[in-house]
């Protein structure tokens, strides 16, 4: 029963396949690099088609690349082609009017988007059960760069306008008016109830079409009717239809009306007034799921487009020996190869079977399609089935589990629809995991993107040449080029525009190499929404990379790297000591890590998982990622000298990203915020109080190998987690006995001999310190004590989690006397 939601007759899809044109030999572009394969250019261009959602157009779902430039296009496919009905005398004149109206409406939509169909015929007009139509495969001409990227002509003999035939084979004539001609022919077939020139051979048919050019002043419709012995029918046709067809079939494109003009005819008035859906600008109508989601689940449940195409014989492999040329010239051109018939266009469409998915989801009750988000009623909860539990599974498995993704996608669609009011809930759910299908939108929500970012983006000058252009241009062809979208021509153009827009918009900042990599994940996730990609980048940088793109960013970067060293020392003194000993400093290897938040270091799929968590954290999170990368390489680092270490990072070995993420999360959560506080962090995201750390100079920071902790964090720890903290007071015993922090121990600074790195030197408390496994060790002193030597000594002894109270004891005394005790009174 609940499956009925899934089995909507319009929620079906099919695939077509063709070959993009192969580049000859090993031709290179003007830069000496191989030309972008045409199939990749097609994929880039076709992305735009996915954005078209219209009742009379089949929705594009996916474009996939196979071997040897094979391209597969998946799109909604439902209903039956009109061609199946033509000779069955099915349509009343009113029905024909309605069909005409719907085809023209669909074409108007396409033409407005500068898409020419060029391929219209009764084969790809699909009649739905409800008698509406949907155009199918209307984007072929568009995605192949007006047919330039394939070696077969894109047209429909019989339906193509005369000017299409007259265009040279390599011409890129793309006048939307040629589609209007095709509409005329389709209508004639519907009216006359027969396919035209059925008995003729291809060449003769073409001659027939071209001969129509001669009826310059007479009616094309009449002539066709006469040729098909249908003159009587012709005479009975009401004028409105006759005129419509006539207007479609004007020989000269310039005399032919546009779809928009035709739709204004009186005959369509009924449809236009009836068909004004109450579209609300404020809030889009909500759909529990769309065909996009269905396709996604279908794939997760094992659906494989290639497999289906093979089953139906659309993809056939021939032994490679058959494709060997007879002769290859030194320049690389090949001779004596028969033209592979597969490179011609194969119009067959393969419907994808959905039964397996239906079965798999059959047990999911209806309530799961409508998850309750705000209700906290016990009664309702108890009546619900237990939630599908996959929390224990690794992330990779969860992302591939169709049922889990079903629940996650349904839930997130709800939440995103309610954004920004659901921000808190989105945060909460995103901390579990983010469904890959909706990642782009979820990220935008996590980055608080709202408002009219599209208009803002539109206003920015992205075209005027600037001095940065050369750098951007040489970086883009080196940026995540293994990815099909980012390596496509369209991808390059988009990336360039976004980068130029960012540079234009942020006149206080400049383009640093690496900004390209940083932009890549956003563009990849929002390939069809440049404005959103830009908005995400623009929100990301202030939050995570504040001031990193200043023309002189050395202070900012050095501070960040110094903090990184301190964080290593805090969590892993052993490693810190080793790296320090071999002079292996973060500035040698970690600049690309932090400047690009690892987007220049890892492949996209890893970045996505890291950033899923990063977006829940703050600008200190990258430090923790860095630490966790080092932790994974720890053994090798500890056993290596300078050269081996640096080689390791020049060619970073495989990093287990799930481990990396969970370890980063763990240290991020267990580290008091002030340990990673920086002068240059963005105050907007890090509110501070007087007790917090401030005005630490870079010099001080570079000298201090252990981080400082703020009085705020310290007091919180003393109060709420006293078992997590060991306070070492290094003032002299007199001061200590006068007043000290609860439970603190006193190791007077002057009593320790720092010569040898041995904990015993601290005296009676050495075992206490040695046994402090999970505690944070806070060193407290005052103006008279040296606040660097002692913590450094502990670090050398391999004591972890050592930090120093910023402001010293005097700050505590004045600000929070309640955690202090006076020993003399006791």
């Amino acid at each position, binding site marked *: 029963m609940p499956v009925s939601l899934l089995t909507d007759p319009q929620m079906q899809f099919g695939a077509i396949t063709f070959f993009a044109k192969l580049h000859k030999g090993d031709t290179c572009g*003007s*830069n*000496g*690099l*191989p030309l972008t394969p045409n199939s990749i250019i097609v994929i880039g261009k076709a992305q735009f088609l996915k954005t078209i959602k219209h009742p009379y157009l089949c929705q594009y779902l996916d474009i996939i690349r196979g071997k040897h430039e094979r391209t597969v296009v998946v799109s909604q496919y439902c209903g039956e082609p009109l061609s199946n009905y033509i000779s069955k005398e099915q349509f009343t004149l009113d029905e024909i009017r309605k069909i005409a109206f719907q085809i023209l409406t669909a074409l108007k939509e396409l033409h407005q988007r500068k898409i020419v169909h060029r391929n219209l015929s009764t084969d790809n007009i699909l009649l739905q059960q409800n008698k509406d139509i949907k155009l199918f495969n209307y984007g072929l001409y568009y995605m192949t760069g007006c047919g330039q990227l394939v070696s077969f002509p894109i047209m429909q003999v019989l339906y193509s306008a005369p000017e299409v035939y007259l265009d040279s084979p390599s011409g890129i004539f793309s006048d939307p008016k040629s589609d209007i001609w095709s509409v005329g022919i389709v209508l004639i077939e519907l009216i006359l109830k027969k396919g035209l020139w059925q008995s003729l051979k291809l060449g003769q048919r073409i001659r027939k079409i071209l001969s129509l050019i001669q009826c310059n002043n007479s009616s094309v419709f009449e002539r066709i009717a006469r040729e098909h012995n249908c003159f009587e029918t012709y005479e009975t046709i009401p004028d409105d239809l006759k005129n419509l067809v006539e207007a479609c079939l004007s020989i000269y494109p310039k005399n032919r009306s546009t779809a928009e003009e035709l739709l204004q005819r009186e005959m369509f008035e009924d449809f236009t007034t009836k068909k004004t859906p109450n579209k609300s600008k404020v809030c889009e109508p909500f759909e529990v799921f769309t065909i996009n989601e269905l396709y996604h689940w279908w794939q997760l449940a094992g659906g494989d487009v290639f497999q289906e195409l093979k089953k139906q014989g659309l993809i056939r492999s021939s032994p490679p020996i058959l494709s060997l040329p007879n002769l290859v010239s030194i320049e690389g051109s090949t001779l004596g190869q028969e033209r592979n018939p597969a490179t011609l266009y194969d119009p067959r469409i393969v419907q994808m079977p959905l039964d397996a998915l239906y079965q798999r989801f059959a047990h999911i009750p209806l309530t799961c399609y409508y998850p309750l988000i705000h209700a906290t009623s016990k009664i309702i909860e108890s009546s619900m089935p237990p939630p599908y539990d996959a929390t224990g599974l690794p992330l990779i498995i969860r992302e591939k589990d169709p049922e889990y993704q079903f629940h996650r996608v349904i839930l997130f669609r709800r939440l995103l629809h309610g954004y920004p009011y659901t921000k808190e809930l989105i945060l909460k759910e995103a901390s579990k995991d983010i469904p890959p299908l909706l990642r782009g939108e979820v990220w935008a929500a996590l980055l608080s993107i709202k408002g009219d970012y599209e208009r803002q983006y539109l206003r920015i000058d992205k075209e005027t040449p600037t001095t940065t252009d050369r*750098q951007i241009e*040489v*970086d883009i*062809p*080196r*940026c995540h*080029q*293994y990815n099909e979208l980012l*390596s496509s021509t369209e991808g390059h153009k988009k990336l360039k525009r976004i980068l130029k827009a960012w540079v234009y918009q942020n006149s206080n900042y*400049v383009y*640093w*190499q*690496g900004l*390209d990599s940083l932009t890549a994940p956003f563009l990849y996730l929002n390939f069809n929404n440049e404005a959103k990609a830009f908005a995400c980048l623009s929100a990301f940088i202030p939050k995570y990379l504040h001031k990193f793109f200043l*023309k002189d960013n*050395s202070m900012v970067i050095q501070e960040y790297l110094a903090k990184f060293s301190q964080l290593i020392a805090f969590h892993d003194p052993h490693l810190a000591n080793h790296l320090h*000993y*071999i*002079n*292996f*400093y973060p*500035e*040698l*290897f970690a*600049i*690309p890590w932090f*400047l*690009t938040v690892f987007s*220049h270091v890892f492949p996209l799929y890893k970045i996505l998982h890291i950033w899923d968590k990063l977006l829940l954290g703050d600008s200190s999170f990258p430090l923790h990622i860095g630490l966790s990368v080092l932790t994974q390489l720890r053994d090798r680092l500890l056993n290596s*000298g*300078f*050269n*081996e270490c*640096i*080689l390791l*990072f*020049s*060619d970073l070995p495989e990093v287990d990203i799930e481990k990396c993420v969970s370890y980063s999360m763990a240290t991020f959560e267990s580290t008091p915020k002030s340990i990673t506080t920086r002068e240059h962090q963005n105050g907007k995201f890090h509110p501070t109080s007087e007790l917090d750390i401030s005005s630490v100079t870079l010099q001080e920071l570079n000298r201090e190998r252990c981080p400082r902790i703020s009085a705020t964090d310290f007091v919180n720890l003393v109060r709420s987690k006293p078992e997590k903290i060991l306070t070492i007071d290094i003032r002299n015993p007199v001061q200590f006995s006068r007043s000290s922090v609860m439970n603190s121990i006193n190791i007077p600074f002057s009593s320790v001999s720092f010569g040898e790195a041995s904990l015993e030197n601290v005296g009676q408390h050495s075992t206490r310190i040695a046994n402090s496994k999970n505690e944070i060790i806070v060193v407290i002193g005052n103006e008279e004590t040296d606040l660097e030597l002692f913590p450094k000594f502990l670090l050398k002894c391999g004591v972890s989690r050592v930090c120093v109270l910023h402001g010293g004891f005097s700050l505590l005394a004045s600000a929070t006397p309640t955690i202090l005790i006076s020993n003399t009174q006791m």
Partner: protein
Amino acid sequence: MANRTGTAQRPNGSTQGKICQFKLVLLGESAVGKSSLVLRFVKGQFHEYQESTIGAAFLTQTVCLDDTTVKFEIWDTAGQERYHSLAPMYYRGAQAAIVVYDITNQDTFGRAKTWVKELQRQASPTIVIALAGNKQDLANKRMVEFEEAQTYADENGLLFMETSAKTAMNVNDIFLAIAKKLPKNEQATAQGGSGQGRRLAEGDTGAKAAGNCCK
């Protein structure tokens, strides 16, 4: 003679060769092919979609010259002007530098000259500088004449070759030419690796790393 695979070839029969270690830095405008040259020299590969270099990358390669094993510690730097402030950190203490330009782009040649000047002023006075006109495979798009660059190199006492990381032309040769020109007395050897590079090459690099080859 040059050995690309990374382990040093031992000249026939001789068991005891001298081992020299040199720090070499690559400089030049962005996208002229610095990283590609290094990749070709060190791994014998060429990546069409070579990633851009941020900060710097470090690689090593060993070549054998007669009875001497020369180990290059190569610093490949970022090309963008902005990263300029980092450059001294890498060329300080370097015994050799390859300044690279792209023969299809005149501006990159201008930039190469600036680098040469900077090295002559700031780097070690004994530094061996080579000029590489890269992307020689694109000679039909040439914007910098061979003679022009040769003359400039002669005037400034630079080694000069046109190279192609793509076809491997002159890549090993330019490194070998540098190796030949570097002083290979004991002193140079001792200096190699520790140099004046305040941070970059201190520590236990010298002895231990050199021990890996020609034992």
